[in-house]
């Protein structure tokens, strides 16, 4: 609760890092394409080519009550609007080509082509035209991440994204997701290596597996306070449950299905296929295992993905990648700023010994370091090739 502005903090981080990719989660609902395209192009310039955009459609801290643009998008409009937004942004980025700036201030004009930056984009969501205001950035387009999991979200990723920030961090779910999404790429004229699957992964590194397990449980108890447990329950139940005792039994009352009635964007009933069934399942489990609200929430939410000794974790990570459960991981440390240290100090060296992790950065841009292929021919020089819509 409480966080910095995404773009500003990434721009500041660009000043104190040299190689890390800087990926911002930015909502396509409460922004204008020109503004967002400009911010990512700026970030890419200011980081010498390390910008990435995690495109989300509406699920973050914002609500339509804070913005001119927008209102709250209906479920069915989220991806059409996101698709339109991303297409508009690409149109803007691609309106400049690498050769559009003069290279000799004595003799060349500032722009070598009077039409540099010209674009036009009109559909049912946006109607904009003119010249984009940021010359081509080092990566051309930022690396595009996508995090949605629905069928629409997977199609969107297969059509548009360079990487998926997936939530399938278990082996079986990871393999199923990986197979499904990679299979979709061919329909969009893309190859399996064009889209990376990177699940969010939490971890607890201990001296031994046993010690790590104990630590993991202690961390979960710290993370899930009584208040947190009630908040999690409210997200499913879609009702005010503040009068319930987190150390007591689960509510007997059923969740409210459909449109959420709490602050929009806070309750997340859409994440669960059938909220009443899920609630029943949780209630039965709590009774069977004698769990309080808080203990139940500890059990059903966010158990750490990888728990063990450094060797155990390194082996598991490698196993996942070698067997197509994913292409890599987005680590989610449970503490900032020190939470990543045990992983960096103890797990990374083992991955390097296994020969499955870099010992120095391969390239300078995020795209290069992710091993993504260069932007496809035509992408990034639409205007020059005369194929602008």
């Amino acid at each position, binding site marked *: 609760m409480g966080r910095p502005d995404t773009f500003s903090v990434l721009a500041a981080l660009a000043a104190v890092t040299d190689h890390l990719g800087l990926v911002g989660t930015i909502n396509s609902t409460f922004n204008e394409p020109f503004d967002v395209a400009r911010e990512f192009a700026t970030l890419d310039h*200011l980081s010498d080519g390390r910008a990435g955009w995690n495109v989300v459609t509406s699920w973050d801290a914002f609500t339509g009550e804070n913005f001119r643009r927008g209102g709250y998008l209906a479920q069915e409009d989220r991806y059409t609007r996101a698709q339109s937004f991303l297409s508009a942004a690409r149109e803007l980025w691609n309106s400049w080509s690498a050769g559009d700036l003069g290279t000799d201030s004595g003799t060349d004009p500032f722009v070598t082509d009077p039409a540099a930056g010209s674009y036009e984009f009109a559909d049912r969501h946006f109607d904009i035209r003119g010249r984009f*205001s940021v010359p081509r950035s080092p990566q051309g387009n930022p690396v595009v991440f996508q995090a949605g999991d629905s069928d629409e979200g997977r199609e969107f990723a297969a059509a548009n994204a360079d990487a998926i920030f997936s939530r399938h961090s278990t082996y079986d779910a990871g393999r199923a997701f990986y197979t499904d999404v990679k299979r979709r790429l061919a329909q969009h004229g893309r190859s399996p290596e064009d889209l990376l699957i990177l699940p969010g992964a939490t971890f607890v590194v201990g001296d031994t597996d046993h010690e790590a397990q104990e630590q993991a449980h202690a961390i979960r108890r710290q993370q899930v306070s009584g*208040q947190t447990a009630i908040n999690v329950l409210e997200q499913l139940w879609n009702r005010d449950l503040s009068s319930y005792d987190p150390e007591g039994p689960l509510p007997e009352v059923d969740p409210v299905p459909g449109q959420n009635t709490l602050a929009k964007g806070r309750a997340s009933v859409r994440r669960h296929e059938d909220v009443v069934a899920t609630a029943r399942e949780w209630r039965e489990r709590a009774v069977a295992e004698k769990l309080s609200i808080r203990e139940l929430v500890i059990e059903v939410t966010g158990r750490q993905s990888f728990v063990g000794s450094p060797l155990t974790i390194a082996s598991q990570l490698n196993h996942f990648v070698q067997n197509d459960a994913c292409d890599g991981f987005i680590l989610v440390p449970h503490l900032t700023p020190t939470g990543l240290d045990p992983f960096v100090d103890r797990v990374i060296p083992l991955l390097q010994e296994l020969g499955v992790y870099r010992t120095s950065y391969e390239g300078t841009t995020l795209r290069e370091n992710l091993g993504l292929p260069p932007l496809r021919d035509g992408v990034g020089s639409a205007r020059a090739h005369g194929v602008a819509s």
Partner: protein
Amino acid sequence: MLMSTDYPIHLAVALDGAGWHPAAWRHETLQPAELFSPQFWTELVQEAERGLLDLVTLEDRFAASRQQDGDTVDIVHGTLDPALIAARIGPVTHRIGLVPTAIAPHTEPFHISKSIATLDHVTSGRAGLRVRTSADPREFANIGRRPTPRFHGAEAGSADAEEAFGEVSDYIEVVRRLWDSWEDDAEIRDVDTGRFIDRDRLHYIDFQSPNFSVRGPSITPRPPQGQPVITVRAHDERGYALIGRDADIGLTTPRDAADAARIATAIRKEAVAADRDPGDIRVLADLVVFLDRTSTAAHARKDDLDELAGGEFASDAAVFVGTPDGLTDQLLEWSAAGVDGFRLRPASARYDLERITRDLVPRLQQRGAFRPHYTTTTLREHFGLPRPASRYSAA
């Protein structure tokens, strides 16, 4: 110990591309691509900080080129987002204030408020924000939300102008309320109760006007300065009223010392009319500067630039062409007339900035008119402006 406020002159520099003269990029032998590199901006602002300046402003536009320059291939094209330039520079500077521009009709006050709050956190209290409106039709076509208002020249008194100024005023009010929407001590990090924040110290702002409807609260904790410094540029009475009511620092364009006195008085009157302490507002005069060791050299450089640009340089602000000694005299005269300092617009970004920091500043220091070193750390402190309490804090 002497405080910053014990010296009569505050100095700011306005950065915009290669400089304020449209041909500056040729004179500076800048490769066009350099303007988009982090090194270019870092070096400029670090140079300004070596000169102990109060702040730099960063211009903005949502169009490919400066409106007054037109769009021929020979003039500078492209602008990076100034709020991100400021954030990129924050970690590699230590004292200088960073004031990016936001264009009210094209951006959301909710986004800007958290962006500037974050800049203030990153810089330990050196953030500011300049808010302006726009009448550039190219910008409105790029956003695609509404038609371009008309309020220049003959249309200065139009309903569009009224609406545009009202939007800037509302924008500032929303941004200030959002900064206040987290009380200073809202983050309690209470391990015993498992509460990271105290929800009673977060507040809806419930702002409603024809321009905006913003509920709040912000997502970003209150910035170190409470409210980062807000600046507005004005050319006429309506603008002075806006500064008097809504700004911490007014940027003005006097023609001479008498004009400077008149404008400063007008703004302070407007502050009183808006029920504010006029001592809480600083008035800076904008000047475009072409500086050289001799007056002849300065004029020759300007002539060269004008010839490259194919016309005589024109500006909304007064233009000074001459030596650092001559400028020192003029600044002292205008300062005595009642302004609190100056925002200098270097005709050539690198060259004229160095003349300011290396030649002008030492002369002002010798005259006892400018700080010999930084004695304060936040931008508000540099200007002797008080740190506002959150309007939502229980008294």
